């Protein structure tokens, strides 16, 4: 049976600031489905991504997040990841002195250790083969693996590194937070092709984007519009085209009253 990520009536604000950002989000994503989440700046899209992953900067005040029936909100970020959730960051941080390969090996071994506390981790040659296969799949230069994580990476390289991590960790549900932002059209196509190779029956995706252009490459099954901390419209791919044509003004007009 397909694994589900269920978000129910989720409320959250920034730690230390009472102003609510998420004000009752409801959404269900199943393995094999691609959902696009659109909305104007400041509507809470990135906050949702971070809250789902367990960023300690945010505090959840109400609601539930269940992955495969398990309550995610009681878990630290690392537990959520090992449970099968992935976040492709909008702004991946650089970590000096830690190579991408070493980092991914630790991440995989953390999974193995959860299954078997006595696990010695994946043998290095096996890991090297796995990583090579994933890099080949995504058309990523092998030298990438030896570079310090995101250090000195271009915008496009950072996003490709995120996709490589997603490919290696094989999550059940992935949240891609504005993976298209800051990319030129060529970089966008490369990243989107990577995402398309990874979506399929085993992965569900929540593709967060401000613009429709990402969705020219990654075809969503469902499109949702977020405004003022809630999902206010849901529909099929035609909704994204409608937003492309008309912008977000009609959303603001239609729901501004509800906000105040």
């Amino acid at each position, binding site marked *: 049976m397909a694994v589900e990520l269920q978000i129910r009536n989720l409320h959250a604000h920034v730690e230390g600031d009472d102003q609510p950002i998420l004000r009752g989000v409801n959404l269900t994503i199943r393995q094999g489905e691609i959902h696009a989440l659109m909305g104007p700046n400041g509507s809470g899209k990135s906050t949702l991504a971070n809250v789902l*992953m*367990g*960023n*300690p*900067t945010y505090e959840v005040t109400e609601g539930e997040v269940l992955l495969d029936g398990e309550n995610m909100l009681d878990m*630290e*970020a*690392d537990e*959520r*990841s*090992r449970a099968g959730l*992935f*976040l492709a*960051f909008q702004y*991946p*941080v650089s*970590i*000096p*002195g*830690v190579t991408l390969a*070493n*980092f*991914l090996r*630790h*991440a995989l071994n*953390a*999974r193995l250790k959860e299954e078997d506390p006595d696990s010695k981790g994946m043998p290095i040659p096996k890991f090297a083969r796995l990583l090579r296969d994933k890099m080949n799949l995504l058309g990523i230069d092998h030298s990438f693996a030896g570079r*310090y994580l995101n250090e000195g990476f271009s915008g496009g390289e950072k996003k490709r590194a995120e996709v490589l*991590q997603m490919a290696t*960790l094989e999550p059940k549900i992935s949240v891609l937070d504005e993976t298209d932002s800051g990319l030129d059209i060529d970089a966008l196509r490369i990243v989107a092709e990577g995402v398309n190779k990874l979506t399929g029956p085993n992965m569900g995706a929540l593709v967060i984007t401000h613009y429709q252009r990402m969705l020219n490459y990654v075809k969503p099954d469902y499109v949702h519009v977020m405004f003022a901390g809630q999902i206010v419209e849901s529909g099929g791919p035609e909704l994204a085209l409608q937003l492309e044509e008309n912008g977000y003004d009609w959303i603001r007009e239609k729901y501004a009253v509800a906000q105040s």
Partner: protein
Amino acid sequence: MVVQRRSRVENIPVYSRSDVENLIAANNEPDWLRDHRLAAWETYENTPMPGREEEWRRTDYSHIRWADASSVVTPNGAVAADVPQKNLEPLIGDKQGGLLVFVDGKLVHNEVADELVSQGIIFKDLRTAVSEDPEIVREFLMTQAVKPTDGKFAALNGALWDHGILLYVPKNKVAELPLHAVIYNTQSGGHLAHVLVVVEENAQATVQVDYASADSETQSSYIGATELIVGDAANLRYVALQEWNRQTYEFSHQRAMVGESANLDWVIGNMGTRLTKAFIEVDIVGSGANGRVSGFFFADKNQFFDLDTQQNHNAPLTTSDLLFKGAAKDQARTLWQGMIKSLPQMQKIDGYQVCRNLVLSHEARMDSIPGLEIEADDVMCSHAATFGTLEEELLFYLMARGIPRPEAQLMVIDGFFDELLQRIPFERVRERLHAEIEAKILG
């Protein structure tokens, strides 16, 4: 009624002139060395214990008990097998140019590759060199780099060093294989070693010296001197790793002289001791010369490290590049004081110094005081000090990939040091140091 009489004994090293004379007699040392030692002793006696000077005023070492820390150490039969295996492993491959091992001041292992000996390269106990290569020792020992007048403890080392290393690479010779020395102590008390490295014109060498000691409840002192003399167009890579036990107080003077068009690549690691006060200086004395000094330190518990660095540009067209990276946790304190100096008319110099600090607890304290004294106008000199903590943003990124928090912390701290450790040319040593850094993080 009992009248208590308290004798006020001054808390200073318990050495005396007769210790110097006994040492000279025991080693049957030549007159020139005898004169040198006694002159150093005079300097020592005439120099007050440091304390109020600018470079000492932040360093409180009053808790040293000199009665223990300067007691005489006599070798008690410990051998190389008593030294931890990690210190004895070959630096690279399975063959090294040479390995000298000292335990409690006694040379217990001595091997030098034939291909080095046949080139006239000398790598031996400094005491042996005094009798076998007197002209070399006499020419360079405390005549150019470290001098007894550099300070109270430099003078004490000059008077009383009782073991040490001479590495001498003659003109145009290249020591292809790295040389390794280990200075290890099993007994507490006063330890005084002197390292003298002379790489003559157009010669080349790579050396590592490990300092370590067995855990002890009793205090020790290490009064050290390191002299690196890099001749014109010569090339020296020098790695010194300090892992004394936590009852040791180190007071050391380390200075390199870098000749015309020569290159020095010096890496210093400071992990051990209760307290370290080290003066680390590079004199760039020939034009076109380059000196790179890299230091890493990690203080925890009650450790206090005070590292004074100085880059002296005494010739035009010279470059120096200093990078120190350190961390402190628990209640530890660290201090780095750096200075770049240039003489007037020393144009076209490029000096750089930076100290990056990673503060790992609220109680730890790290200070950095960079400084410039530049008397020429056509120069490029810059300095910086940075302070950071473990950033939650980095930890979240690693955790979001499934890595548990403690492991994520380890990776970030380890990564912080990696840039520095990469400057050590031996992979095995880098791995060993990564493991030691991790032990400190988890400890």
